[in-house]
């Protein structure tokens, strides 16, 4: 069910590598204020999908609209409404937290940048690391900096690729709270990939199960497992992965 105007609309996305479809004609949307989980086994096509939405991978077929703007024809304007954080894309370790936030804030042409940097630093509890190079921060601290960068421009669409991977439970809980707070403001939607089933069940409003490049299942994470005859999302995940 589409609650409000979608911030992301993907239609019939397809990407083929060496004759094998990595993403095979998937369509989905993310609405403002909504957290949508994109889950599936390794190689299911999650990162390929995220890469296409980020504009760093061109789909072979299909279209992506971000905030109503066609990514293929209006790349800069569409991408200015997004931002992302991924465990495999840390910010340059040779710049300080503040320097990274300033550079990326400028890349996203963020208005009132100095004030936004101060707000993001306060929101993610980074004040004591403001002048610390990102490369010497712990995994959890680097994730907080990546999320501060990802929310700096108050994106309409926030893409998070396993944002809590490799974090300790306490830090992961803290990160989840901040992402939930972002979505609760209702100004942007979140597309979230994770392998942590209890996490997606507690965080996501809607779940897309991806396998072999296709969306096999979609629905409310709290009822999806039962509706498909499984005791938990983890059981459902295993069943989908082995299908």
């Amino acid at each position, binding site marked *: 069910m589409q609650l409000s105007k979608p911030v992301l609309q993907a239609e019939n996305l397809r*990407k083929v*590598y060496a004759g094998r479809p990595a993403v095979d004609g998937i369509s989905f949307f993310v609405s403002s204020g909504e957290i949508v989980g994109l889950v599936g086994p390794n190689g299911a096509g999650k*990162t*390929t999908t995220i*890469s296409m939405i*980020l*504009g*760093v*991978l*061109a789909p072979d077929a299909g279209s992506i609209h971000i905030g109503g703007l066609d990514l293929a024809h209006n*790349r*800069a*304007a569409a*991408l*200015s409404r*997004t931002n*992302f954080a*991924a*465990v*495999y*894309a*840390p*910010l*340059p*370790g*040779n*710049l*300080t937290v503040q*320097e990274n936030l*300033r*550079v*990326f804030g*400028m*890349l*996203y*042409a963020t208005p009132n940048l100095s004030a936004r940097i101060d707000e993001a630093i306060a929101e993610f509890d980074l004040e004591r690391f403001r002048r610390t*190079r990102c490369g010497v921060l712990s995994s959890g601290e680097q994730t907080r900096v990546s999320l501060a960068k990802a929310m700096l421009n108050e994106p309409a669409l926030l893409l998070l690729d396993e944002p809590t991977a490799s974090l300790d439970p306490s830090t992961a809980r803290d990160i989840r709270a901040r992402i939930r707070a972002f979505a609760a403001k209702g100004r942007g939607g979140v597309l979230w990939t994770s392998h942590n089933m209890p996490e997606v069940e507690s965080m996501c409003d809607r779940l897309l199960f991806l396998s072999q490049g296709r969306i096999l299942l979609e629905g409310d994470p709290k009822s999806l497992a039962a509706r498909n005859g499984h005791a938990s999302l983890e059981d459902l995940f295993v069943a989908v992965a082995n299908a």
Partner: protein
Amino acid sequence: MKLVRAQAVALRQFYLMKGSPVRILPLFAWVLLDILLWGFITKYLNSFAASGFSFVPGLVGAVLLWDFLTRAMHGLAVGFLEDVWSRNFLNIFASPLSISEYLCGLIATSVVTSCASLLAMLALAALAFGYSISILGLMAFPFVLVLFVFGVSLGIIASGLVLRLGPAGEWLVWPIPAVLAPFAGVFYPVSTLPAWMQPLSWALPPAWVFEGVRAIAAGKPVPLPDLAAATGLAAFWLLVACALFAWIFRVVVRTGLIARYSAETVN
């Protein structure tokens, strides 16, 4: 095109240099060593020359201008390589930054770094060997500009190669000036070269610049046709370089190389 995004690319390079003397040193160290080396060679050669003749304008001036071109190329390519070294492609190319904004930011960086190198070289060449670029008169500015434009064009082409071939392509970047130097006629007239090399030389803007420099140093009239050819060729190569980089970017986005440039290094 948003100027603020190009400024962000240049600001990142400024931040890197501000916090790292290791990045500042190469701007000056190698070019100054080159000036010293060629300055002493020139002094030695002068001892054999006819009275009143000096190799300084021809040799020290040529080395200085060629090193400036090299610095212009490296200034751009190193800015690009900083994104390779820090695995930053995904962050920057998933942003609204356009290729033209990215290249403008890198060119701005190269302006600052190559001009700093040039000023240091001019100071050393003047103090140690009595060389003054003012012997080129008003032609000094357009000649330097042509060499800068061709230098950044080479930097853009080299960056495109690394983007297409992956991080290992970096090893193709550094020798480019050395490969081109024999064709560019830095130290000798193009007519010295075998016939098969000469058409290649005349396709390179530096060949026209160095012919002009030698003409002025020999007291001949200012070679305006050489300047016109050099300027036209420099503009041509800049357009070719930008078009090539943009094409390579489209290829790597289509094939997924950018997405994997970062992600695969983690796995």
